[in-house]
């Protein structure tokens, strides 16, 4: 008999089944599709039309190409420091696709695929990592927050956004991302506790990619899993294979449904691997072996989803080539647009600090503008 935890008692039987079957203390991890692209646990296969799975693969491939190109643009001095998302595309795209348009996304900084699904474009990405706040000016109603750099601080905002949604009785759900390192932060604890106490519609999505810069996951926390930390807060938790698009999608889908039904938050730990460096300023060879990198290369999320699609005759080499061409040209077009964007003006750096600019700030703005005018004669 499966024990039902207090944290799953409000769920429907169907929802509780998944979280109970993969109870964080059972040592089990949800995997639907293995590294060869075979469905190994059909019971938890999400109910998705083939077209949606193809679409997911296309976004993941697009994100992979964009990521690779961005790192190379950084090396050429055309973008500033940026965090590669390579290897984590299934976790990003799978979780984001399980949400509805009305839902909110509160990111950390390494979820490119998720942002693209939510409505950001590569132009936003290039602007942001090319050094302009304009990259965080998403279209009205996108419900995507800007990148949050201080680790896990954004989890509190997710709780607050969900609090406002619940206060109004709206159906929206909030997903927020953090990493294995982020699970050590006080804000992870405070936000988890708050969301559970007020039963808020939040999905805490942990990208456990093995490292917090150089610190290995096993030195980050003595807990066997990050998912099991959910138990202490009285919310359901689950560990999933983060490189398996279907497992990520299914767990997020159940968590979102549960949150939307008014049953509160949950914690998903997606076990994945950051194949790139922490940021372009980092050198992973200082803290991990080539053998380890190679082992994870074989578990890459792109490879297995492509194999799955090819076995189902939904994808082939021609389509792969065609999509790479289309994605490349789309990304190139947006990079050109980024490089043609005008630099910020003096007004731009002042006018968004406050709704109404205080006199002292106006004075500083005029002083700076006058100086620049004098200098430029």
């Amino acid at each position: 008999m499966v024990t039902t935890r207090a944290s799953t008692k409000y769920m429907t039987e169907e929802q509780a089944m998944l979280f109970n079957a993969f109870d964080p203390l059972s040592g089990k991890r949800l995997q639907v599709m293995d590294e060869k692209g075979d469905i190994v646990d059909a019971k938890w296969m999400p109910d998705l039309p083939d077209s949606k799975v193809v679409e997911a693969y296309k976004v993941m491939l697009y994100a992979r190409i964009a990521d690779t190109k961005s790192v190379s643009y950084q090396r050429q001095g055309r973008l500033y420091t940026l965090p590669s998302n390579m290897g984590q595309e299934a976790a990003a795209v799978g979780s984001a696709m399980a949400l509805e348009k009305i839902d909110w996304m509160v990111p950390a900084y390494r979820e490119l695929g998720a942002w693209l699904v939510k409505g950001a474009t590569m132009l936003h990405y290039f602007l942001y990592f090319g050094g302009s706040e304009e990259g965080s000016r998403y279209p009205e109603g996108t419900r995507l927050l800007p990148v949050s750099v201080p680790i896990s601080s954004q989890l509190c905002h997710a709780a607050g956004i969900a609090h406002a949604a619940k206060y109004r009785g709206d159906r929206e759900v909030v997903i927020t991302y953090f990493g294995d390192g982020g699970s050590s932060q006080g804000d992870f604890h405070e936000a988890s506790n708050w969301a559970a106490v007020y039963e808020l519609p939040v999905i805490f999505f942990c990208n456990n990619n093995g490292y917090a810069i150089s610190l290995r996951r096993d030195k980050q926390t003595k807990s066997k899993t990050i998912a099991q930390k959910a138990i202490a807060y009285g919310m359901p938790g689950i560990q999933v294979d983060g490189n398996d698009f279907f497992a990520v999608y299914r767990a997020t889908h159940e968590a979102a449904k549960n949150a939307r039904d008014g049953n509160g938050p949950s914690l998903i730990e997606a076990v994945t691997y950051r194949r790139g460096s922490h940021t372009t300023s980092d050198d992973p060879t200082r803290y991990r072996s080539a053998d380890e990198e190679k082992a994870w290369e074989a578990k890459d999320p792109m490879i297995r989803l492509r194999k799955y699609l090819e076995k189902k005759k939904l994808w082939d080499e021609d389509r792969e080539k065609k999509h790479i061409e289309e994605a490349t040209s789309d990304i190139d077009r947006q990079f050109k647009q980024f490089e043609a964007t005008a630099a910020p003006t003096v007004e731009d750096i002042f006018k968004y600090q406050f709704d109404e600019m205080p006199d002292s700030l106006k004075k500083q703005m005029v002083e700076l503008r006058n100086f620049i005018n004098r200098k430029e004669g």
Partner: protein
Amino acid sequence: MAVMNMVQAINSALDVKLADDPSVIVFGEDAGLEGGVFRVTEGLQQKYGEKRVFDTPLAESIIVGSGVGMAINGLRPVCEIQFDGFMYPAFNQIISHAARMRLRSRGTYSVPMVIRAPYGGGIRALEHHSESMEALYAHIPGLKVVIPATPYDAKGLLISAIEDNDPVIFFEPKKIYRAIKQEVPEGEYRIKIGKAAILQEGDQLTVVAYGAMIRTVQQALQKAKKDGLSVELIDLRTIYPMDADTIINSVKKTGRLLVAHEAPRSFGPAAEIIALVNEEAFLHLEAPPARVTGMDTVVPLPKGEDLYFPDADRVYDAIKRTIDF
């Protein structure tokens, strides 16, 4: 009109805004059921329900951090930090997010939030309950910092703070929470943030102060009046944005400046005010600008605190020395 102390006036401001705007919510540690440790929110949960006025877990970072999220999603949160000395765990949320979200998102998201906290010294309290750290917040781009000196101002300023579209740190001088009673309208009125008040006109010296220090300065001014000294007293009311015009115009008239605050001296508000006057009214000065402040030490525990905080005698001494220079 009712006679209110500052606690009652702040409660009345919250009452007015809760009644007026369903997006206003009030929360903090013990702020719901029991109405806060100083009873500032007393009766509000009973009147508006647990959804709008509620107790929170004992965790300052999420109190402010969830407020940032609530504000992004359309609410106007008014959160209470139990004492200003307990705001530091929320510092990251205040500085890294509340103060930056509008600029970071190019105006897509904003944080119309008020963070209220009992503030300042003089109540013989335990450690961490007596500091005046307004300069920390005034130094952060994106924050407004308001410190009322009277019940009337407290209510009008808090209503403005709640209606402000940017985050406001609202420090309530706990020493004068119940010390001053005044006629305060029961309904809605506003005092503009960023506008100082001239409490007394004079032509020999300008004294700038705020919060509980206003009362101390007024005691010193009674003695000064007996000595025939003519002093202008400005209540700053808002630390940031500062009402530079009122200060500069006054100093141009009097030729002398004294700033009084409880906060430690170095890099404190007085330093900023004196720099401003040096920039804008240098040629009008007839004496070096002076300051009476707390010390660059930790606030002593109650047995020693009277030595630390400026009292009327210290203020009077500085007034006399500046005018006699």
